[in-house]
């Protein structure tokens, strides 16, 4: 088989990052920062490679009846976002994590995410998703001697294994009824002829299994326990990179592979998106712990991310233009979301140091003790609520509502709109806690430079895409 090695370069870089972390840990065990620095370098190299490959022509490799690996513009975007998110998570992990294994596992997970964007068949996709997820089980459990951490990891593991099985079962059913695994061939096979019930079952099972990754209802219950048990940087990774992986997988399967079956998949996605928004927002209203609040809010956000795909439930939304608009809106919202979410988690890391997320009331006085970090936190939270001055979040909301109305799904647009009001109720509560007084003497919180740099970078990106949303819209188009 003739391999296009250039197309594989980003994947090599990502895998190399993991290996590098492993080797540096082995060879220079005394230097705590060395392994983090090596991982950071690797993520940067991956991002650069993805951009370089993405600027060239579309490259395909692993081709037989169809191609399993296509390096196009969108794949490059996914790879870059994954690499940069991992970079931020590495920086956030520096104060609390010194074990080499931690960075090795992070690099492995990133490899899955980077490759995911390039995959074009169901088996490669599943393998990439698993590569993304497997290293996360131990990472969630990385808080030593913490029962919550172990509990979170076990919950995560069990739900994950079940959902992988479900995805594989669905893929098997699709293969059995069409004889195809490549997205293009699946779409062609589904495009004509009668659709046996097995296809319907297969399609729904694949989507349901992948819904676990984005923590969509009804596969959402693991998220709050896992996020709260995990070290905060890992929770940040779970709610951004890992969730993005799930969104990409669902997009590829629902639109590229099962495009002709959208009359089945579309309504299912609309229902999942609606339920996810509502359950996530209502769940977040009652939370007393910061990371749990962010976890529930990220469930609700998954609902907004999937909502544009819900427009595909309607015949009017399924024109070629409608589909590409919905895909662009989903990706666009996802990009805005990961920027704001990683900003919020980064602020939690900065304010809490190496400790867990703590209760919301523990954040009292943060505004006086760390005004700049509080500023980033507020900007991120308000952005997630979709309001100025978090312009990035405002435009993200606009992207979704606009796509839904173009697709004729006005009812879903109103559901999104009303949910964003519920969302503001708890974001405002969390923000209010930052400004409450706690009677402690004012002492500045000390923040290491890696965390500060990462947070500053994220805030800068959030402000820039807030004023120039067209950058994101062009990138995902």
């Amino acid at each position, binding site marked *: 088989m003739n391999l296009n090695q250039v197309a594989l370069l980003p994947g090599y870089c990502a895998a190399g990052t993991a290996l590098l972390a492993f080797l540096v840990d082995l060879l220079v065990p005394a230097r705590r920062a060395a392994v983090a620095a090596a991982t950071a370098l690797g993520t940067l190299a991956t991002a650069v490679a993805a951009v370089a490959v993405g600027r060239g022509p579309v490259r395909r490799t692993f081709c037989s009846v169809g191609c399993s690996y296509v390096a196009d513009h969108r794949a490059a975007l996914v790879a870059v976002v994954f690499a940069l998110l991992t970079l931020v998570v590495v920086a956030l992990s520096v104060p609390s994590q010194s074990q080499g294994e931690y960075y090795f596992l992070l690099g492995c997970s990133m490899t899955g995410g980077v490759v995911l964007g390039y995959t074009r068949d169901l088996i490669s996709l599943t393998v990439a998703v698993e590569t993304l997820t497997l290293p996360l089980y131990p990472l969630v459990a990385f808080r030593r001697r913490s029962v919550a951490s172990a509990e979170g990891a076990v919950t995560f593991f069990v739900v994950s294994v079940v959902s992988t099985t479900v995805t594989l079962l669905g893929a098997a059913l699709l293969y059995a009824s069409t004889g195809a695994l490549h997205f293009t061939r699946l779409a062609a096979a589904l495009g004509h002829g009668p659709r046996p019930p097995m296809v319907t079952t297969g399609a729904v099972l694949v989507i349901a299994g992948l819904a676990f990754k984005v923590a969509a209802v009804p596969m959402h219950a693991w998220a709050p326990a896992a996020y709260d048990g995990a070290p905060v940087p890992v929770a940040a990774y779970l709610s951004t990179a890992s969730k993005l992986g799930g969104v990409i997988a669902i997009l590829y399967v629902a639109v590229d592979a099962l495009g002709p079956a959208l009359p089945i998949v579309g309504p299912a996605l609309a229902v999942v998106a609606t339920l996810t928004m509502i359950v996530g927002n209502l769940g977040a209203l009652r939370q007393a712990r910061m990371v749990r609040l962010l976890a529930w809010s990220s469930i609700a956000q998954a609902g907004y991310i999937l909502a544009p795909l819900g427009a595909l439930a309607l015949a009017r939304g399924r024109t070629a233009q409608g589909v590409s608009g919905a895909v662009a809106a989903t990706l666009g919202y996802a990009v805005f979301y990961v920027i704001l979410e990683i900003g919020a988690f980064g602020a939690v890391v900065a304010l809490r140091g190496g400790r867990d997320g703590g209760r919301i009331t523990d954040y009292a006085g943060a505004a006086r003790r760390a005004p700049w970090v509080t500023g980033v936190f507020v900007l991120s939270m308000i952005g997630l609520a979709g309001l100025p001055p978090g312009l990035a979040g405002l435009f993200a909301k606009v992207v979704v509502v606009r796509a839904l109305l173009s697709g004729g799904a006005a009812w879903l647009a109103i559901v999104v709109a009303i949910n964003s009001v519920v969302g503001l109720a708890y974001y405002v509560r969390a923000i209010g806690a930052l400004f409450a007084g706690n009677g402690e003497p004012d002492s500045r919180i000390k923040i290491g430079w890696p965390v500060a740099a990462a947070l500053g970078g994220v805030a800068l990106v959030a402000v820039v895409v807030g004023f120039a949303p067209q950058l994101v819209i062009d990138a995902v*188009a």
Partner: protein
Amino acid sequence: MTAGQALLVATLAFPALGAAGAAILPARADRAGRLVAVSGAALALVASVLLYGWRPAAPAGPARPGEIRPWHELNLRWASGLDLRFHIGVDGISYPLVVLTALLTLICGIYTLWTVPAVEVVSQEAQPRSTPPPCTRGRLLAALLLAIEVGIVGVFLSLDLVLFFVFFEVVLLPMYAVIAVWGGPARRHAARKFVLYTLSGSVLLLVGVFLVVTRAGTGDLVALSAAHGAGLSEGLQLAAFVLLALAFAVKSPLWPLHSWLPDAHTEAPTVGSVILAGVLLKMGTYGLLRIAVGVLPDAARRVAPVLGVLAVAAILVGGLVCLAQTELKRLIAYSSVGHMGFVLLGIATLNATGVQAALIGNIAHGIVTGLLFFLAGAIKDRAHTGELAQLGGLRDRMPRLAGLLGYAAIASLGLPGLAGFWGEAFAVIAALRHGGPLWTVLAVAAALGGALAAAYFLRLLRRVSHGPVGPAFAGGCPPLSAGELVSWAPLVLLTLAVGLIPALVLGLAHDPVMALVAR
């Protein structure tokens, strides 16, 4: 860029820069920060006044139905993927509101130079200190006021639907912060109610705006208004109008969506109340007129009777509640519900008289209620209560303050010769002119509502100014400060000026209003 375009940008940029400058300064430079904010607001007022001086000669010939002819216009690309353009301009309908916003913000900024409400920080300030803690957050209050100004002026200047929505949202959180940080004892509850209530309005605005934009293929307000609803199906127009009208009804507020307003006003600090009543509510009435009626004229005609009935209900309910009200600021807040009812009644008639009445009613309410809230704040600062039962005898204790309160109250109840008269009288006349049994009944009921206003304001004066000295004034009162007098003087003068020369507002608006209501 022409001078006019530069002035448009300056009207938005000066408050933004002032807000940023004031917020960045450290706590020890608090007073400098407030001065930076005030100078930002002053420059914005100068720029907004110059907008009038630099306006071009009116184009010849009558405007086509719905046509907007901005004096100055700036149209830049922002985010084409969202149908968003930075398209701003000013015409005779928006101009008085822009100047009023700039003026009230400056006045409030000057007011904060002297007086900043204390911030109660739980247990933080309670610790024993050798000296009382200096006020270190005044600059932040001033910065938030300027941020609110950016949003409100942006709303009035927007000639793009999506941009309008963005500016509409800008106002929300700064106002929340003003109420939640500097407000009264129940401020958190009031602030949350305000922000959630008005956000539910503005998300409907988002859906309504994009319903129009995705169907019409453009968000350009000039083009959409000139099209006068052409190309939009009847059902779509109606759906979009209902969404937009709901959004603006929450903001205005229109009965029965008003219940956030009394709480917000009662708890907000004085400057917050002034901005809230003076100009923030006007975003709702302006939006209803310019966006909902301007872009969707056919639907407006169909829904107008419903709006009219709700507006008159607001007038009557506002008046009756005021008669039974026992708290000073709450009473003024409910009187706002009634006054905004007159404005909405004027808009609902959809004739030139009614729309003119609505425009001048907007301005008059901004000036007079702004003044009333300043006076109520001054009384509460001295009496430490707003309960009418505790007040009384202000005329003996502080004759000048009592005189001003009486002046503002009779202006507000619509005495001819003062600003409040024109809007209310002509809203009633417009409803009569509209003809038909429904509108005649509405006109009569609105006139009765006007009489109610006289009743409750006279009751207010009797309770506060006259009678024996109330317990709240028993210990002496500090006299009026220079800051108070300086910030009130423009409002006092404008109340008289607009009352005597309504052409100050209406002269500019004549042509645009004719274009707006033409079929």
